[in-house]
């Protein structure tokens, strides 16, 4: 793998995490392509297929997302958003009467396992893991753990986020909202 590319990708992710933790949501929006597809599929406890036993396909994670990862899948993900939706979320968070942002949460994103999965002419596929610590009010504390499967669009000096699929590790989300920027 192109080590020069990794040297450029890592700072992109660290900067993104810092902007979100510092609540610089408008600056974060600037990291997105205006064609962004942002999805958070819902997960379920799947019944394993006896016909696939003795093979790795037996334990394939994708069955827990049913058809949501497919282009034409109809099952509802938790979120399925474009630039407009994310922009509305950002604009909303800056209002006095956005009661879930005022007072704001204190968050810390730990991004690790950044892996360039493939490189194309204009884009690269990057996977990463994130642990997000969320603390709000006096002591409403929650943890989110997920993998991000991203497509980054190459820019002259850095990247734009073109696609993000957030694979949460929970079936029952143990917090009051999955409406964050993951």
């Amino acid at each position, binding site marked *: 793998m192109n080590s020069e590319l990794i040297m450029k990708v890592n700072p992109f992710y660290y900067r993104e995490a810092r902007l979100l933790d510092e609540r610089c949501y408008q600056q974060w929006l600037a990291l997105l392509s205006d064609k962004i597809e942002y999805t958070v599929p819902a997960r379920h406890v799947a019944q394993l297929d006896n016909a696939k036993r003795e093979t790795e396909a037996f334990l394939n994670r994708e069955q827990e997302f049913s058809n949501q990862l497919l282009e034409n899948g109809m099952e509802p993900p938790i979120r399925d958003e474009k630039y407009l939706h994310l922009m509305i979320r950002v604009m*909303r968070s800056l209002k006095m009467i956005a009661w879930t942002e005022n007072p704001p949460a204190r968050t810390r994103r730990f991004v690790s396992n950044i892996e360039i999965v493939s490189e194309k002419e204009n884009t690269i596929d990057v996977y990463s893991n994130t642990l997000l610590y969320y603390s709000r009010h006096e002591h409403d504390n929650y943890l989110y753990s997920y993998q991000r499967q991203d497509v980054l669009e190459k820019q002259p000096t850095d990247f734009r986020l073109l696609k993000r699929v957030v694979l949460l590790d929970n079936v029952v*989300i143990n917090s009051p*909202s999955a*409406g964050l920027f993951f």
Partner: protein
Amino acid sequence: MKTPLPQQLVNDDASLIRREVFTSTEIYQWEKQFIFARSWLFLAHESQIPNPGDYITTYMCETPVIVARGEDKKIHVSLNSCSHRGLPVCRADRGNAKRFICPYHNWSYTVEGALHTVPQEKKLTAPVDKTCLGLKQVPRINSYCGLIFGSFNEEIESLHDYLGDMRWYLDCMFDRYNSGVEVIGSAHKWRINANWKLPVENQLGDVGHGPYLHGSLLKGTPQVDELETFGFNVVPKPGHGLALRLMPENSPVEKCMWGTDGMAAMDKEVNQYLIEKHREVEERLGKVRGRMKCLTYGVYPNFSFLWGNNTIRITHPRGPSQIEYWSWWVVEKNAPDYIKRKLRENYTFFFGPGGVLEQEDAEAWSQQHKGSAIDFMDSTPLYYGLGAGDEQKHTEIPGLTGSCFNELYAREFYKKWRSDIEKGLHAQGLQK
């Protein structure tokens, strides 16, 4: 400290509710025995288990059950607990099975819940009477418009009578289309630190909170003006409730269709679909229901339905201080894929665990729960009296109605709640 009597918890007109109603462990035990064990509880929609062997796992209050389509094509509801050592015998959220197998000693059960095989049997000389060791069955199961309900109460009235005039309103969505509706996908599930009655009372008809709690998105929109002008809440039968807008006669079709109008306005094809559907709806349900734009529904005790965003939901209690909220997406079966996708977006962006409006509701419920759990507030019950006395019968639609901000829907719920607790405690007293 002794828990107050039901009449001290909820006053006679239910305008004052003591805070421990939302926090007390003892009251929660009463609710389990006298409400959840005695009522019809929503389980699933028939479209989720169309074929023999299809099942989903869910809960009745905190009790795990398997809702399955049997080889006989009938619906069977079994408790998900092995008769031998009590382990769950079904460990997936949904699927299709011939047998449910307990991991411990591999006892196996049919999808209908009968004990099929005890592997140890042939190694023993004494026989095992398998006929009386099936999975415990939920004794009463019935459906209305594809909505499957179950009850632990063998003597409960029919589901038809239990729903009463609520049926007239449920038809508006669940009998709305020639092709019917279907639930697609697994439930979205999330935990909120709140008492189970808080989401329930919200969905029973609290549309008045819209421009306030959700002010960052809704304040000053035409939808809110329309709501305050034509909206009210309805109690078709105490305990059940809904909120709707009844548009005036001769309103143009664009003003009457469904209730996803704000979002439809953004998409031509959805707009066209809703207009076409509106004609179908008038034919099926008549002129009055053709002018009705429903908002939220609640069926006693914990089934809710959010009309404009296509979501049906169950508030599963997890003790007095936490819920597991389940939300399913429901849509017209034969709607074109493009329309379904747009309506799906109209669900997930606003509601469900990632929804911009839903997150604010979760905030309100958990904060109300915090406010209910504080000390030295025995003499300061919560106030549920808004609009008391101005409710009336409506000439066009069944039930008692109150204006948009009348808290009738909640008072009638808590009166029914108090009556159920009183009846239960009384019956227990007689048994002693």
